[in-house]
């Protein structure tokens, strides 16, 4: 008995050692490209070539960063912030509006409307790209950040309605009934009861969609053209043309574009992880 127990303990300890080694290996793989990016962003052009990519930079030299910031960088950042807040506000309002009747009303078309919205989740955005490109031109929105709001709202609606509807379904019926007895109409119930109670769901959704909108590429790339009208993920293009042989410079641009997410990760790690897994409800 004693021996058996000891054998099992040794076995379990060995498997822990192996698991930890593998975990460390996975951590190294996950972080190496990131370190490569940050470390080389401080080097000068020739330093990287002569000393190799793994050598620490000779000194903490911010001149690459200075040069990047002197370009359109702040303009990209500002554009991204505007697009993010406007799209997110519209998206959350529209989704909350839609989720209210879908989660709490009985009417004929309920199931159908919900099914159609949810089915949109697997539609590839590429099929909408050419017509939206043409539309942005005829509405004179092409090459402006305002062209991005509509598509950003629309492509994120299906998942948002899906998540919010299931969230609102969990709000107890009794609260609503009490409000009805107090003489509240359906519209007032939404604003004074359902919306405040849906806040946690809305904040998770804000993070989930916020990250998606912040990182969005294909519409930003197609619907804007001139550099001052572009968003942060597209910042690299400006510098890539100019400095394609200057890897440290590009690494500085990339580090700066990732910085807002890193800051958010440091200050609100749990919220961010939870928000980004919001899609992790059964699909």
């Amino acid at each position: 008995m004693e021996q058996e127990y000891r054998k099992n303990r040794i076995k379990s300890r060995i498997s822990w050692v192996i698991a930890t080694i593998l975990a460390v290996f996975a951590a190294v793989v996950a972080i190496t490209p990131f370190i490569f990016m940050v470390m080389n962003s401080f080097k000068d052009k020739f330093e990287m070539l002569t000393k190799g990519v793994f050598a620490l930079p000779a000194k903490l030299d911010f001149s690459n960063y200075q040069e990047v910031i002197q370009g359109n960088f702040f303009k990209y950042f500002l554009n991204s912030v505007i697009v993010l807040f406007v799209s997110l506000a519209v998206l959350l309002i529209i989704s909350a509006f839609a989720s209210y009747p879908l989660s709490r009303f009985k009417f004929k078309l309920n199931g159908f409307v919900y099914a159609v919205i949810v089915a949109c989740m697997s539609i590839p955005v590429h099929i909408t790209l050419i017509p939206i490109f043409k539309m942005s031109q005829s509405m004179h929105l092409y090459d402006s950040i305002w062209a991005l709001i509509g598509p950003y709202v629309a492509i994120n609606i299906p998942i948002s309605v899906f998540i919010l509807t299931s969230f609102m379904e969990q709000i107890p019926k009794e609260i609503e009934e009490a409000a009805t007895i107090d003489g509240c109409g359906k519209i007032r119930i939404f604003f004074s009861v359902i919306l405040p109670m849906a806040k946690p769901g809305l904040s998770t959704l804000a993070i989930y969609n916020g990250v998606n909108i912040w990182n969005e590429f294909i519409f930003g790339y197609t619907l804007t053209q001139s550099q001052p009208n572009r968003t942060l993920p597209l910042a690299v293009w400006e510098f890539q043309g100019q400095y394609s042989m200057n890897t440290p410079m590009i690494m500085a641009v990339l580090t700066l574009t990732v910085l807002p997410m890193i800051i958010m990760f440091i200050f609100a790690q749990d919220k961010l992880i939870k928000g980004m897994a919001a899609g992790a409800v059964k699909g």
Partner: protein
Amino acid sequence: MKKGEISLAKKRQRDTNRVAAIFLAPVVICLVIYIFYPIIETFRTSLLNWNGISANQEFIGLDNWAKLLQDGKFWTAFFNNIKIMILSIIIQIPLGLAMATFVEFAGKKSTIFKIVWFIPMLMSSVAIGFLFTYALATNGGIISSISQLFGGGNIDLLGNPKTALYTVIGVVAWQFTPFYMVYCVAGYTNVSEEVYEASVIDGANKRQYFFHIALPLLKPTLKSAAVLSMVGSLKYFDLVYVMTGGGPGDSTELMATYMYKLSFAQFNMGYGSAVAGGMFLLISLISLLTMKVLNGKKEDY
């Protein structure tokens, strides 16, 4: 009296319908303008010979669709998508599950691993694409430098048509594995503490607990992870467009990159629309089939 009640109920239902219509109007308008109309318009454009700019739209019927069926490049792209799909599911989900299981079993001590593993999720696909273009460069890339440390030569992973697609798949795995870790961690929180405790009291060790209790309970999580990964792989675009642009040759060409290049580089919007339409139909078909297969064998726990 009875009559009055019925009309009251009717009135109430009419009221409900009216409020529902008001609340649903914005969503319907938005989806019609930015999703349903564009889909129809894409199918209409696929019947045209049109460069996207000139007013001259020549109606050519189903010519573009006939061309699509025989277009080797499109089917190469489709099968590249399928390869990415299969390898993504095989690589990312088990790795994500393994990481989540490690985090679950090791408890608080493993927080540092969870944080480090999550790092790739902080970068946009575009940033990852650019980073890896440089990190995998023949000259001064990470892999080449490691190979030189061991006395080897430079390695050109992205420039070689034989390795390019698998390299892309590796980078995609680097990007998305943390997502499936988080996904599985969320799945574990649904497996209640009591179930674990009960199994320990019953004398189950960790391996038995994992295979006989946790894994069956995680099945729905893993299923929907697989569906997500599948749909995601079929519409993959950003990273590949940035990293390889579909090349070398058409070794990493995907449906989305092919469609994009046709429409916005060659300005062949008629045929580009047909490719977009084909992509839409294939993805819808595959999603529907998968849903049917997965829901057909519904198991309850």
